[in-house]
């Protein structure tokens, strides 16, 4: 039940956010055309595309984990029996993933909130707010953390999906 809810959430986020790549590609091309053909570069393209790119990849961390797209060395664990391998993988999550994901969630939340309280913006002639991206990072970290919970539950219950190569 939990597994299904988490997997569905990250699947939906992944399917929506993946499209953002087209948006910032189009913005870059628009800016190049405005600059080169019309001699009138946009004031916002640099910062907006950069922010969209950051939003794009960080939000997809949980989605990539759901599809087991993150690279790993499985030459050693491959030689283990199925049960042993599953427990080694669970141990990997407990030792490495959860400490990192926990720090990622809690610290980015503080980081994003501070930026929001200060009303932080970029500092050129266009003052674009920076806090939405910083808060999005905290949300992305949370999505990653819960996807890790889902993956561990799958390993414990023996309901894992085969490793995917991207």
């Amino acid at each position, binding site marked *: 039940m939990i597994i299904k809810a988490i997997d569905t959430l990250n699947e939906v986020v992944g399917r929506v956010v993946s499209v953002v790549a087209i948006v910032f590609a189009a913005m870059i091309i628009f800016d190049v055309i405005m*600059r080169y053909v019309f*001699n*009138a*570069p946009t*004031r916002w393209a*640099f*910062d907006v595309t950069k922010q969209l790119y950051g939003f794009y990849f960080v939000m997809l961390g949980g989605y990539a984990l759901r599809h087991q797209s993150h690279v790993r060395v499985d030459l050693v664990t491959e030689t283990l029996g199925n049960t042993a391998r599953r427990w080694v993988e669970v141990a990997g999550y407990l030792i490495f993933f959860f400490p990192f994901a926990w720090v990622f969630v809690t610290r980015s939340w*503080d*980081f994003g909130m*501070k930026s929001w309280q*200060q*009303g*932080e*913006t*970029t*500092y*050129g*002639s*266009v*003052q674009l707010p*920076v806090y939405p991206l910083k808060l999005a990072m905290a949300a992305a970290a949370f999505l990653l953390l819960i996807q890790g919970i889902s993956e561990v539950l799958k390993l414990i219950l023996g309901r894992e999906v085969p490793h995917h190569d991207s």
Partner: protein
Amino acid sequence: QESWTMTTTWPTSLELIEIDKHFVELANKLTGDDLSIEFFEGGALVPAGEVFGAVESGTIQAGGDWPGYWAGRNSAFSPLATTASLFNAVDYVNWIQQWGGAEIYNEIYGKFGMVYLPYGVTNNESGFRTNKKIETLDDLQGMRLRLSGLEQGRLLEELGGSQVSMAGGEIYQSLERGVIDGAEFSTPNVDFSGGFQQVTKFWATPGWHQSASVFGVMINKDSWDALKPETREMLQVAADANLIWSLAFTEKRATEAYQQFKDAGIEITRYDDATLEKIQVMANGVIETTACENPDSAMVYLSMMEYLGDYAKWRDASAPFNLGRTPNGPDIEKLRACAAQ
């Protein structure tokens, strides 16, 4: 015995880091066993844009900076870092040390839980490096120029140019390929090390966008309070000494680099006085507008203008042996009204 971790916004490849290094050296000597500062080059601990956050949160105790980088958090940081056609380096030194500037730095940085010691000053920045000659304002029309800063960008747009934002690492190549028509970066010596003489033919002086610049160290308030009063005093002494050292050091280096640019065959032009006069009027307008959007910013500009007015009495009397010009700056009453809001 305290030990601090300190970093800066500058990577090893930019000569500006010498100002930070010189301060750390002085501070470590003067404070003896009471404080040891371990200094890391820019990027080794946190990226340039994150030095502020790292010191604010106390992750590290101190961070060298140029205040303008934090203008997105409070636009008052901008005049603490540089001005468009207003202060020269001596004005900053006078204002900081005797006309209440130091307190204003601490008031603004204090809002973020930090103490600030200004410890570096450079005079005029180079100005635009281009492949099309700039002599008058008409030449600026339609030019795509890499320029950083809030007031600076607004001023350029009023002058008819377009501000192009660009990461430092991309400037060289974009100039070479004509993606942008010109760029300003820093002082002549820093520009020379960036290789701009290889990709541009002209250099338009003076750098009206950044008449002088201030550098310094942000210190986490708790770390500062943990020091003995004598140690704090020693840090202040080191900062004051470094401030004057940096002025002479960077002016010497800029002079050397000016010659290097000439030797490299760069044609150096100057805006005529009438043009600079027009730019001054526009810069005043931009400063008034920007200051009135933020009472903190207005407060800083007001203090700066009060200094200029006060000092003008003696500065003008001592001409021609005076230290720099008295600019015909923004309307002080307008600033006063906006600061009172």
